[in-house]
């Protein structure tokens, strides 16, 4: 048998006997990436994605929109990590066209799918709207483009399933813990009435059909807990 041995990055040889092993900080909390910059998107891509997420989740009287909530920032940071490169997935060939029951069978990881998908969409918009960029279209035109995209009326081989990926990631950005760069001020959670990272509801279990009284909480606490904040 030939063995191509791949070791797991960062792991240490591990034998345990006679005691409960305990390594301090073995399971680290999530580390937020510093803001104020794009990690993966080019400025043009970032502008386009911000415009898209703002139509997928528009600002209205119910909540802020996807752009202000940080959905594009969230997606950019996810793409910068193991998610963007499909590091944890099975990425060996051969790559054959699959049946719907077999899931995504492309060779491209999310970063490449975004690159190709956004480029194809930009090209489509330029062709349809006299050289304009998606971000410069009127909201109704933007919705029309996205609707066609969603309905599969815009065919882009390089971006197979890209609309669903974009929509899924946008929703993740709106509803994931704010520590990942989206869901600003827990706007997504407030919209639904989800109390976030709370961990003990014993006092409320039998309060049937009653509104839950406490505000949402992030892994990083609540904004007003910050030292020096008012």
């Amino acid at each position, binding site marked *: 048998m030939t063995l191509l041995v791949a070791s797991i990055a960062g792991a*240490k040889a591990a034998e345990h006997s006679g005691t409960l092993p305990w390594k301090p900080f073995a399971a680290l909390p999530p580390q937020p990436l510093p803001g104020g910059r794009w990690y993966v998107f080019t400025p043009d891509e970032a502008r386009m994605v911000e415009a898209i997420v703002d139509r997928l989740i528009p600002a209205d009287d119910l909540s802020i929109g996807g752009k202000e909530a940080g959905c594009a920032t969230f997606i950019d940071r996810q793409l910068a990590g193991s998610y963007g490169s499909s590091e944890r997935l099975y990425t060996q060939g051969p790559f054959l066209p699959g*049946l719907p029951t077999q899931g995504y069978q492309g060779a491209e990881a999310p970063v490449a799918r975004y690159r190709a998908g956004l480029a194809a969409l930009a090209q489509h918009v330029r062709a349809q709207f006299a050289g304009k960029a998606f971000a410069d279209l009127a909201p109704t035109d933007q919705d029309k483009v996205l609707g066609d995209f969603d309905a599969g009326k815009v065919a882009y081989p390089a971006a197979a399933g890209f609309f669903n990926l974009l929509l899924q990631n946008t929703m993740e950005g709106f509803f994931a813990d704010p520590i990942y760069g989206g869901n600003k001020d827990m706007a997504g959670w407030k919209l639904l009435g989800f109390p976030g990272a709370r961990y003990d509801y014993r006092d409320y279990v039998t309060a*049937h059909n009653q509104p839950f009284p406490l505000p949402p909480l992030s892994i990083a606490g609540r904004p007003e807990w910050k030292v020096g904040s008012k």
Partner: protein
Amino acid sequence: MVRKLPRKDVVIVGLGWTGAILAHELTDAGLDVVAIERGPWRDTATDFNVAYAPDELRYAIRKDLFLQPAQEAMTMRNNISQTALPMRDYGSFLPGTGVGGAGTHWNGHTWRFFPSDFVLKTHLTERYGAGRIADLTVQDWGVSYDELENSFDRFEYLAGISGKAGNLNGKIEAGGNPFEGPRSREYPLPPMQMTYAPTLFAEAARSIGLHPFPTPSANLSKAYVNPLGIAMGQCTFCGFCERFGCANYSKSSAHTTILPVLMRKSNFEARTECEVLKVDLASDGKTAKGVTYVDVTGELCEQPADIVLLNAYGLHNVRLMLLSKIGTPYDPATGTGTVGRNYAYQTNASTQVFFEGKNFNPFIAAGALGQTVDDYNGDAFDHAALDFVGGAGINCIPTNGRPIAYRPTPPGTPRWGSAWKKAAKQNYGNTLTFSSQGSSYAARGNYLDLDPTYKDRFGRPLLRVTFDFPDNDIRMSNWVSDRMQQIATTLGGKQAVVGRARKGWNSVPYQSTHNTGGAIMGTDPNTSAVNRHLQSWDVPNVFVVGASAFPQNAGKNPTGPVGALAFWAADAIRNHYLKNPGKLVQA
């Protein structure tokens, strides 16, 4: 270069639920035991920190605690006419990895199967005639419910299951499941307090003559000290249960029930981040010498042992047997061979009832907190006039309100934009969900083998899953969906959407990690891979423990019977095998 290690009495592959139970039982019998686990060490205090455990993105969506396909994937197809392709990401089911196994991030529904489930072929043939199961390959387990009762009881007391008995020593008890087999004593803990949705569901079900009861849960209704002296806490209904580790010591797993005692024993050792590649056989192929594994540094190691226990989860048990050439691979064309035979799954459908002006607070929840109706499960009802066998439990168990994945909206709602937002807000707290979890009966074309094309990171073939829901199971599930419709109508609400099972098992959406069969137990070595003690017919110093042993699956979650089988196999080794090593059953 292979590093040869000193001999052990027992080597265990995988330190999940079953590995931990067997390790405890066999070290108790004085044996020197090593468990080899391919994932990392994990324990509650370090890894499931209350400050950042409630993180839906990390644990539920990106699946931080699960087996990563890069480490080991599987291929799938619905039938042999298709080309199997890799599940590049796990979706339909999510195998575990690391100390504690899938028990780390399970929900905790903890069942016993019905007595008739263990003698299914005999029972159905006697009641309905052999013709009724002609297109299925259902079999008897070779062990009866009565024989397993004590093992079920031990698992439930180890785990501190919360529930209400429906049948105590043959006497039907109010408030419990009247269809269950007799139990020798009450559950160790009373049922959990009920939230609003299951309470309404139970009222509706009861009003149309059904028998709802609290779902037995491994989420603890009270603080508990188990028979090993390990203390656990009360569940806080956090709603971050399935796919997460419990930070409160309230969900039973190997960590909260066994490992604190096991790890202090000098005759036990756990080696983590070490992946077993195969069981090493003697040249005659009839005795195992030990296992070969690759450790975290990439070094190949040989661990000799007198007894080899496969506790790697059902699917991985089967792959290891095939890679090690233990037993004869199953051939669907001829129906012969035993390893890979009778792979089965779970046939589910779900129902949503949309209300107005209700407040279900879906985030106040626990993995197994809810109510179940078993009137249409297994053979609890008469199938004489029906065109199927089997059945489903109907469960109202709202496990969470985590908003990336849980945002119910009525059909026809756009997926994005202002209209979507309005509907998402309106229905989040206003929706009651319940579902049917149906039996999955074995059929000739559903099986496991090694993929001819796709390889793992060591260059070894992946496991290939060939599966579709048999027609019998689709008919069963649709009939139960009609019963769900009745309950939904009784509940009222402004709209109900009743799900229906369809042909074409889809490997993408999550359905359940209730994969069964492939190394089934039985009384005939021609149709089972292991005997009634879970001992390989072909290599008697190998025992294969897990849901791989189920000849078919019932309409219930598997871990109760899996835990019971672990105690049952441990007893066979302790009380019979050690005295007289060799075949426990002569074929």
